[in-house]
């Protein structure tokens, strides 16, 4: 029995040690605190940070200030921000980035220690509660589902915990930002474009690009990783059970 397992599979999904570029993980923590940890399969930490990000960002009106800053309206940007909350935000934000970078670097070391060992893992977890199994899935399909509604790609690529939390947050963010309402108004009557802009809540709306692209990236990269894991597990099995040493070979 290996001291460190390379991969596991249970009814909540699969998880494996993989190489992650620390800078990329740190970037996703910067785009949306919590995403970096989700990418590293640290779902409790990731969800706590995700929740904090939304509470602190919403109360400090940081996104709104960002909108004003990008437009060039710096006076409004200064006025709209809540000083108390923004001062909480700063250490929180940098902790997320630092912690995910550090963790990714450490996990890479564990990956190099374990990557040459054969993959011995459960490939099917059959339960009355939920069934999960290892097979190959299409990375682009996963990312397209997540672009359509963040969380669906995670469901497709058997990441049950991030799928549930992302779906919940997607609903909360979509409903609060009124993007779909604005889109509907615009499609029904393109002349009402100003009305459709006014209906959108900028504070909530700015969560959307990070949410969509972050979950699309997560779904894509995890599908690639799990496909790789599948191949390695199959190779281990075939080598052990069907290798040349197990049979008489005459060519």
């Amino acid at each position, binding site marked *: 029995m290996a001291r460190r397992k390379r991969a596991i599979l249970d009814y909540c999904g699969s998880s494996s040690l993989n190489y992650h570029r620390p800078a990329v993980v740190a970037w996703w923590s910067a785009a949306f605190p919590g995403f970096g940890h989700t990418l590293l399969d640290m779902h409790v930490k990731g969800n706590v940070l995700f929740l904090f990000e939304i509470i602190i960002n919403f109360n400090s009106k940081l996104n709104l200030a960002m909108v004003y800053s990008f437009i060039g309206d710096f006076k409004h940007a200064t006025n709209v921000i809540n000083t108390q909350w923004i001062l909480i935000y700063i250490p929180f934000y940098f902790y997320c980035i630092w912690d995910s970078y550090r963790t990714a670097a450490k996990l890479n070391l564990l990956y190099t220690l374990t990557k040459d060992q054969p993959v011995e893992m459960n490939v099917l977890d059959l339960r009355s509660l939920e069934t999960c199994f290892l097979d190959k899935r299409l990375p682009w399909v996963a990312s397209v589902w997540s672009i359509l509604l963040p969380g669906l790609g995670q469901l497709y690529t058997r990441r049950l915990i991030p799928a549930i939390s992302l779906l919940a947050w997607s609903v909360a963010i979509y409903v609060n930002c009124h993007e779909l309402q604005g889109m509907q108004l615009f499609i029904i009557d393109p002349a009402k474009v100003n009305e459709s802009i006014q209906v959108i809540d900028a504070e909530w709306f700015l969560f959307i690009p990070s949410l969509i692209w972050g979950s699309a990236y997560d779904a894509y990269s995890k599908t690639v990783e799990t496909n790789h894991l599948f*191949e390695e597990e199959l190779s281990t099995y075939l080598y052990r059970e069907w290798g040349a040493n197990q049979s*008489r070979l005459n060519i």
Partner: protein
Amino acid sequence: MSNILCLFRPSLSVELLLTELQRNKIKKSDISCFILKAQTPFKNGLTDKDPTETTSLADLGFIFATVFGVVGASIGFRLTLGPIIWGIVSSIIGFLLGFIIDYFFTRAYKQKSHSFVLISICCRSEQETLIKKIAETHQVLGLTVIES
């Protein structure tokens, strides 16, 4: 006696094929599997960038899409078509830009190579057609028969 060599991509169909062969009275001891591992060009040190890491071809695309999406959606509040359309447009532009940069500048050390499974089946000549038929229904990539 003859020997059939067939090549597969690693997938569930390999295991299905092995089960199917056993069901058709081909003994396990007559079958051997070989893994043709994808070869990675070079390695410098343990902790260096991992060349087998396949996800990074889209890294920059997703990152740029987010950056462009946030900025584009913000500026969109001032533009005629509004934040949604500008957000989507700038996200797509960002994604393509990032993807193109990754594609041309980072592809060199990420040449993707595939793993394959080579299966050798030792059988009597009259079993050949049956085995070929089974292999064909399981997405075989190539097949050859060696008479001996």
